[in-house]
């Protein structure tokens, strides 16, 4: 039973990938890093994303080693430039 997560792209990453979100499925167990690798392989333009971007799961900052579960919202975040 594969894990399916919703991946969201923001700012420059959304421009690079040409979309703001995608559904990604992969076999368990899977980490955020696995999601990133799958995205970079499967989505046109996603090769331009860094191999180790900032990431959040369900709106919390996480390391790329964090596990993901079906239904999670995984966000790939360009370098933060708020304020």
């Amino acid at each position, binding site marked *: 039973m594969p894990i399916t997560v919703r991946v*969201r792209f*923001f*700012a*420059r990453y959304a421009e690079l990938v040409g979309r703001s979100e995608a559904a990604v499925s992969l076999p368990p167990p899977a980490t955020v890093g696995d999601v990133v690798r799958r995205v970079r392989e499967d989505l046109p333009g996603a090769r331009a994303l*860094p191999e*180790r*971007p*900032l990431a*959040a799961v369900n*709106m*919390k*900052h*996480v*390391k790329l080693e964090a596990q993901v579960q079906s239904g999670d919202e995984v*966000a790939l*975040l*360009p*370098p*933060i*430039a*708020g*304020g």
Partner: protein
Amino acid sequence: MRSAELNAMSYLTRSPISVDVLVAEVSSSACGGTCLFLGTVRNGRDEQGVTAIEYSAYEDMVDAEFGRLLADARGRWPEARIAVRHRLGTIPVGEASIAIVAAAPHRAQAFEACRYVIEGVKQRIPVWKKELRVDGSEVWVDPAGHPTAKPSHV
């Protein structure tokens, strides 16, 4: 899509930030010191013909992360009263993109809490900016040359 709505409960706004409203939110007769920080769009020595900055965000996460950041600040300065507003959209040079206000019984707490929050914003709050230049070009701002650095609290 919930992130498109900027409601009254959000730390985000698409309108100019009212300093008076923010200061009023935290004012209290028990507080003798109030520190306000305003971040404004700059066209200075390090910029080249910037006319405005377009701010965008992972809006739901901004609100969640601001909630955690302010809870952290209140844990450190329990007597401080803190309010924050981040503006999104196209902001012209000279106008504020962020305002943070901290009121406390004593001034040291107010300064420290205010500074803590703006430093946290720079590390944690998922907001991005694109410089709009006089020549019509647009450039994403990659702060401080640490393009893939993780926030230190992760």
